[in-house]
Every structure is written in structure tokens, then in C-alpha cells.
């Protein structure tokens, strides 16, 4: 009996690596610590009623941000482990197998479990406030999206200590990712983790398209929307068209592995290249899905801190929309070397170069917005300013890569690695940081310490260039991606050491950010004014943090940058818009179903990974029951009375 348990445990848990053993122990200890704290302070009920069952977009947004910062930590540690391994030739710090797992999880986590949730967090925190709405269109679905992401991410991450991590690269190309190449469980964790969270992302896409198209405050015409809302719309439309392809692709890979089908296998007339086409039909739009909202954030930040209306509003809208359209016609540039022929390569090279045009338009718009503006260099603005040169250089190396004949040299080299880190860190991460710093006072009602923020900023920026500039050179010197070791005579060591130093500078930058948040909470100073930065858009017209119902009265919008214009009118002593009488506010009730249903998905996924049908089938039945229970419940909303709104408003405005 004891032996049986031992056998099972040695198969169930990942064993034999001191680094992973350390992680297992620390994860176990943290779980115990969390459970103890929650029990000791009697916080279980609070956790359930305030957070796990909430349908409030503001709380869901906060949970997304917390989860994504944790994932940033995990992905960052992965990156630093790789940098240590590459700092010297023929190092034995990470075994080849472990190295493969780490670059795989680093990629997946950073894109799908860090960038995506941070983006969804900002969508949730900002979009309803900017359009003058009281929640998203489907608050229940919104909560479901979050928990699907959360449990998908957990399922993926648990593979680190249970069963084994995936190790076939972040997009898991077959035939390596097939049963023949990856017989372990890691690849199954990959499929189910991403599948579950991907369904959540798809639902978020639909939710925000409906929210933006149907729930804007009266008077807010499409062309009067804040630019961030436009960028969210373009990103969500892209999600709607791209994510179903991911769902199908992962499903096909799953039935290849689970039922022995032959979509992408080498035998049975399967076609591995089809997977690579399909996954990039999702994967390329995906990078625009995450970068478009960053463009929207920069537009808001640059305009606010230059005290000017955004330059070229219409061209910005056009650029966003055309990028989201063109993003579907560039996928093959990820594999010019596949051999599709000169004509196909020429087509995809051209479409790729075309995207540089609307992107260039945007850069000029930001520059002209700053031109002759009264610029203040707050932390959000610094991120925006640092983004421009970084993204321009990254974009130009992208154009170099898009030249199909030249790409045969660059393909899968460190030149590529440097390129996509430059556009993703320089574009997406800088953008989301700018957004996080910009909207932080609105969300939490206190400011972050500016001085520590600037330290973090400089460490991030200097670290970034020190880390990735050498990698362009390394790529041209012939170093390919995913090598875990190299020989002394390659001459790659000096630049690799520089790169590793840069990586650690960014690690220090992250610590500064943690310190900044901790410091600002420690010396908590309530934000007295809802308008922290002398902002332009509707979210700054209400107290920070926003009350449950956001707007006591729905704003009547007349202008682009409506709140700014209103402030101008007040300053000029012109009559302000008359206050309409308060009305009862209709709100959705909290629900535990999204949490439970996502937990059932997790159970089903875990069961399929281990091929335990006794676990997978009850999981799926649980999902079905949750859906039916929801369908049969009609009592899903309530009203906030006028008296209660008056009380809340008086308390909020009184504390001014």
C-alpha cells in the first residue's frame, strides 16, 4: 500500500530537481500561510462575498491586475534563470530538459497569463468609467471570464510541480508537441490551461464590444469616444475573430493526442504545417490584440500630460482599425522559411510592411500632441515618452525581418528574440505600466510614490537596452533561439554576459515597483480629489475610487474630452449642465456560479490531462449543471434606492 502511494506520488509530483523541490516547498508553505491567515482573521466569508462572487467590473479588474503581476513575477523568474544559464558557455545550471520547459512557460505566461490579464484588468477598470456606464454589458459573463482565465492559468502553472511542464515551445509546434514527440503530461496541461482561459478571453471580447457599442452615455457618439475606448474596441473585435481559431487549433491537437487522430502527425497523412498556419492565424492577431490597447493608453496619457487635445483623432481611429484588419493577413511572415514559394512570401512581406504605415501615423500623432504642449513628466508620461523611441527601433527591426529573403538569415535567431521583446516590452509592457500608473489613483483612491516609480522606470529602461541590444548582435553572429548552451569558441560570451546583467537590472526594477506599491500603502494618503491628473475624460469626473454604481447620474456628453470641456466652462463661469434628478439604479446581483463553473472546468481539464475520466466527466457535468442553474435563475438583479445613492454621494463628496 505504502509503495503504491510512493509510486503514485513520484509520478504525480515532479521530482529530482532541487530548484523545483524548493518551489514545491515554498508553494506548499504559502498555501498553508494563506489558509492560516484567512482563517485566523476570519476572512473566508469576506473573500467569498466581496471578491470571489463579485460581478463588479472594478473588483474584477483589480483581481486581473493582481493575478497578472504574480504571473509577471513567475515569468520574470523564468527569464532570469535562462539568462543565468546563458551567461557562460557550457554552464550546467539548468539541464537541457529543464531549460526547454522554462522557455516554453516563460513565453506562454508572459503573453497569455501576464499581458492578456493585465490588459483585461485595464479594460475592466477603465472602459465603463470612460463611457459613462455603470457596468459592462454582461457582468455575470465578465466574472466568468475572469475565473476561466484564473483557473486556466492555475492549471497551466500547476504543471510546474505536478506532472511536468510543457517543453515544446510557447506555440507547441507539432510533431514535437504530438504524443510521439512529447509523451509526457506537460503538453496536456498546456492545451487545457490555454483552452480554458482562451474561452474566457473570447467572452471578454464579445462583452466589451457590446459594452462599447451599446452602453455609452447619452450624447457620446462613436467619434467622441476616448481613444482608449477605441483601442479596446479594435482589440476586442480582433479577439472575436482570432480566438475561435485558437480554440479549434488546440482542440485538434488535443484529439490528436487523446483520440489518436492524424491532423498534425507525421503518419496517417497528417500535416504539421497546417498547425503552424492555424496557430499563427491566431498568434499574429494576438500580438496586435495586446498592443492596440497600449496605443490607446499612450494616447490618453500623452494628451493629458501635454494639456492638449489628441492630435489627429480621426487618423488615430483609422490607424487602430486598419491595424486590426491587416493583422489577419500577415501570419505567414512567421515562417517564410516554410517554403510556400516566392509569391506567397512576397504577399505576406508586403502586408507586414503595410502595417508599419498606420503605426507610423500614430507615432507622429503622439509627437504632434506633445508639440507645444505643456508637458509634465509624471511617471505615466515618462513611460509614454520612453515607449516612442523603443517602439520605433523595434518596429524598424520588424520591417527588416519582414523582408522575406533576408528573413532566411534572421529566422529563429536572437535577432528575432530581440525584436519581439523590444516591441512587446517597449510597446505592451511600457503601455500597460503607463496605464496602471495613470489610473492607479482612480482605482484605489491613493497615489503611488513618484520617486520610487522613477527609480523603477530608469532601471526598467536601462535594463531593457542593456539586455536586448546585445541580442541583435548575437543573432547576427549566428546564435539561435532556444539553445541552452554554447561552446567557448563561438565568441558569444561577452555579449551574453551584458545581456544577463540587463535582465537583472529589469529584475531590480520590478522589486522597485513592489517597494513602490508597498511604500504607498504603508504611507496611505487618501486621494482627496477624484481628478488626480487634471484629466480630460469622464472617469475623472467621479470620486476615487468610484462608488459601486460609478455614476450617480449618467453624464450627458456633448464633446470629445467632455470632462475637460466641462472644467473649461466652469472656469470661464459659463453655465454648467443642469443636474438631473436621481433615479433608482439597476444593478446585477453577485453570483457564485462563475467561480464554481470555472472550478468545474479546472477539474475537467485536470482529469483529461491525467486521463482520469472519473474526474473529467463529473467536471463536465458540473459545468452543465452550473449553466442550467444560471438559466433557471430569474432573480439576478436589484435596485439601489435614491436614498442610498444620496447617502453614498454625500459621504463621498463630503470627504473631499
Amino acid at each position, binding site marked *: 500500500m505504502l509503495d503504491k502511494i510512493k509510486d503514485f506520488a513520484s509520478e504525480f509530483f515532479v521530482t529530482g530537481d532541487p530548484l523545483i523541490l524548493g518551489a514545491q516547498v515554498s508553494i506548499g508553505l504559502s498555501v498553508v500561510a494563506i489558509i492560516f491567515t484567512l482563517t485566523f482573521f476570519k476572512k473566508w466569508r469576506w473573500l467569498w462575498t466581496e471578491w470571489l462572487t463579485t460581478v463588479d467590473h472594478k473588483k474584477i479588474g483589480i483581481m486581473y491586475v493582481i493575478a497578472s503581476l504574480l504571473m509577471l513575477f513567475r515569468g520574470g523568474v523564468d527569464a532570469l534563470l535562462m539568462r543565468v544559464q546563458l551567461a557562460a558557455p557550457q554552464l550546467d545550471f539548468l539541464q537541457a530538459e529543464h531549460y526547454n520547459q522554462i522557455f516554453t512557460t516563460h513565453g506562454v505566461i508572459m503573453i497569455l497569463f501576464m499581458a492578456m490579464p493585465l490588459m483585461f484588468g485595464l479594460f475592466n477598470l477603465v472602459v465603463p468609467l470612460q463611457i459613462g456606464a455603470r457596468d459592462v454589458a454582461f457582468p455575470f459573463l465578465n466574472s466568468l471570464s475572469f475565473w476561466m482565465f484564473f483557473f486556466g492559468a492555475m492549471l497551466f502553472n500547476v504543471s510546474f510541480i505536478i506532472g511536468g511542464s510543457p517543453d515544446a515551445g510557447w506555440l507547441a509546434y507539432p510533431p514535437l508537441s504530438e504524443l510521439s514527440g512529447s509523451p509526457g503530461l506537460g503538453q496536456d496541461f498546456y492545451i487545457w490551461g490555454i483552452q480554458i482561459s482562451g474561452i474566457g478571453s473570447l467572452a471578454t471580447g464579445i462583452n466589451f464590444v457590446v459594452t462599447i457599442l451599446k452602453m455609452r452615455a447619452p450624447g457620446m457618439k462613436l467619434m467622441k469616444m476616448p481613444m482608449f475606448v477605441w483601442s479596446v474596441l479594435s482589440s476586442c473585435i480582433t479577439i472575436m475573430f482570432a480566438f475561435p*481559431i485558437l480554440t479549434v487549433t488546440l482542440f485538434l491537437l488535443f484529439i490528436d493526442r487523446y483520440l489518436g487522430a492524424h491532423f498534425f502527425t507525421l503518419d*496517417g*497523412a497528417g500535416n504539421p504545417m497546417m498547425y503552424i498556419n492555424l496557430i499563427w492565424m491566431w498568434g499574429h492577431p494576438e500580438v496586435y490584440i495586446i498592443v492596440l490597447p497600449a496605443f490607446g493608453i499612450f494616447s490618453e496619457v500623452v494628451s493629458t500630460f501635454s494639456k492638449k487635445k489628441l492630435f489627429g483623432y480621426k487618423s488615430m481611429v483609422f490607424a487602430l482599425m486598419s491595424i486590426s484588419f491587416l493583422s489577419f493577413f500577415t501570419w505567414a511572415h512567421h515562417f517564410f522559411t516554410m517554403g510556400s514559394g516566392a509569391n506567397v512570401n512576397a504577399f505576406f512581406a508586403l502586408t507586414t510592411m503595410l502595417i508599419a504605415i498606420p503605426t507610423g501615423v500614430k507615432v507622429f500623432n503622439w509627437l504632434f500632441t506633445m508639440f507645444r504642449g505643456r508637458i509634465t513628466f509624471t511617471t505615466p508620461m515618462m513611460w509614454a515618452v520612453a515607449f516612442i523611441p523603443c517602439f520605433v527601433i523595434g518596429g524598424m527591426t520588424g520591417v527588416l525581418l519582414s523582408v522575406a529573403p533576408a528573413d532566411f538569415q534572421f529566422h529563429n535567431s536572437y535577432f528575432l528574440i530581440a525584436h519581439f521583446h523590444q516591441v512587446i516590452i517597449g510597446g505592451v509592457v511600457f503601455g500597460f505600466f503607463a496605464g496602471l500608473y495613470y489610473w492607479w489613483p482612480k482605482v484605489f483612491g491613493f497615489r503611488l510614490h513618484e520617486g520610487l516609480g522613477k527609480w523603477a522606470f530608469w532601471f526598467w529602461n536601462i535594463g531593457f537596452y542593456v539586455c536586448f541590444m546585445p541580442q541583435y548582435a548575437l543573432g547576427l553572429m549566428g546564435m539561435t533561439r532556444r539553445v541552452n548552451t554554447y561552446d567557448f569558441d563561438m565568441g558569444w560570451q561577452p555579449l551574453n554576459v551584458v545581456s544577463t546583467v540587463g535582465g537583472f537590472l529589469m529584475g531590480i526594477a520590478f522589486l522597485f515597483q513592489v517597494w513602490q506599491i508597498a511604500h504607498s500603502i504603508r504611507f496611505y494618503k487618501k486621494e482627496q480629489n477624484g481628478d488626480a491628473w487634471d484629466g480630460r475624460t469622464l472617469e475623472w469626473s467621479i470620486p476615487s475610487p468610484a462608488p459601486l454604481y460609478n455614476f450617480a447620474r449618467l453624464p450627458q456628453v456633448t464633446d470629445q474630452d467632455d470632462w475637460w470641456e466641462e472644467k473649461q466652462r466652469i472656469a470661464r463661469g459659463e453655465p454648467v449642465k443642469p443636474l438631473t434628478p436621481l433615479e433608482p439604479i439597476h444593478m446585477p446581483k453577485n453570483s457564485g456560479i462563475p467561480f464554481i463553473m470555472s472550478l468545474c472546468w479546472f477539474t475537467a481539464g485536470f482529469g483529461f490531462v491525467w486521463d482520469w475520466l472519473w474526474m473529467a466527466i463529473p467536471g463536465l457535468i458540473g459545468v452543465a449543471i452550473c449553466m442550467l442553474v444560471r*438559466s433557471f435563475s430569474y432573480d439576478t438583479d436589484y435596485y439601489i434606492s435614491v436614498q442610498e445613492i444620496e447617502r453614498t454621494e454625500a459621504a463621498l463628496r463630503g470627504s473631499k
Partner: protein
Amino acid sequence: MAHAVSRTANAHGGHGAGHGGGHHDEHHDQESLKTFGFWLFLITDVILFGTLFATYVVLRFSTDGGPTGAELIEINGIIVSTFILLTSSFTSGIAVLEMNKGNKRGLIGWLAITALLGASFVFLEVNEFMHLVHEGATIGTSAYWSAFFTLVGIHGLHVSLGLVWMISIMLQLGRRGITPVTKRKVSIISLYWHFLDVVWIFVFTIVYLMGVM
């Protein structure tokens, strides 16, 4: 949601109407929001099927020297099930007409007929699959059969889920009658049902007519 209420209220020229009247408008508005959301969901489902069709088309000749679709598929059964599904689309349309007339019994009755037709479609499909497996074509036989079973099977799965959903709506109709909420639910399931019918027409054309005949 709430802001929609006051927008409607504004359109009526004042807030004095009180929120008793607002309730109705609001339900109406919230239901139309959900219907719009469902249309967007259908767009994503189109992409899902589009990807499966593309996969099928790429792999249509990849039989690996094994049996082809033309050899094993019996087209007559497929034509029968096609007509059954088309008829069920028609009966679901009648159900919506009955609903608009306010006839609850008629509505539930026609939905039941639709569900029965849908169930017979699924039954025939399962039979067809069993026949194929018996003849030696399984999902693991070759890439062609993988693509065939997946595309046709996922359509069948959609129909089966639709059946469970339709039955749950019939139960809700029985309990609550025709309200703005149940009305929206019926419209959405009928939308879904027509959508599956359209997808089937493509399956029938591309997989069966072009692949077999």
C-alpha cells in the same frame, strides 16, 4: 442597463414617469442587449466552423491509402437527415410565430416537435458514425477521417447542446409563460437553430456532395 433606462426615459421627455414604467423598458433593453451579444457569439462560431472547414478542405485527399469518403458514406441516409434538420428549422420558425401570437401551448408544442426532429437528426448521425466505424473508418484511420469526424461531429455536438438548451427553455416557458425574458430566450435558441441549419448546408455541400458524389 440602467443608463439605458434613463436614455429611454429621456427620449420620452422626462423622468417623472417614475420607475414603475422604467422597469418594463429596462427589461426590454437588457434583453435586446443579450440578443445583440448572441449575434456576436454567432460570428465567433462562424469562425470556429470556418477553421474546421478549412482544415477539412486541406486534408480532403489525405486518406493515407486507406478508405475514402466516397467508398464508405451512404448518401441516402444523409439526404434524409438533411431534410429532417431543414424541417426542424422550419418548425422552430413556426414556434416563434406562435410566440408572437402569444400562444404558449402552440409555442411549447412546436418547440417540442423541433427538438424531436433535432434528436432524430442526432440519432441518425450517431448511426452513420457507427456504420463508418464498423466499416473500418475511425478518427485515427487517416487525416481525412480525423477531419471528417471532427467537423461533422462538432456540428452534431452543437445540435445536441442545443437540444438540452431547448428543453430547459420549454420547462421555463411552462413555469413562467411568455415574458420578455423567455421571449428573448426563445428568439435566441431559434437563431442558434437556424445558424446550425446553415452550417449543415455547408457540411452537406462540401463534405457530402463534393466529397462523395
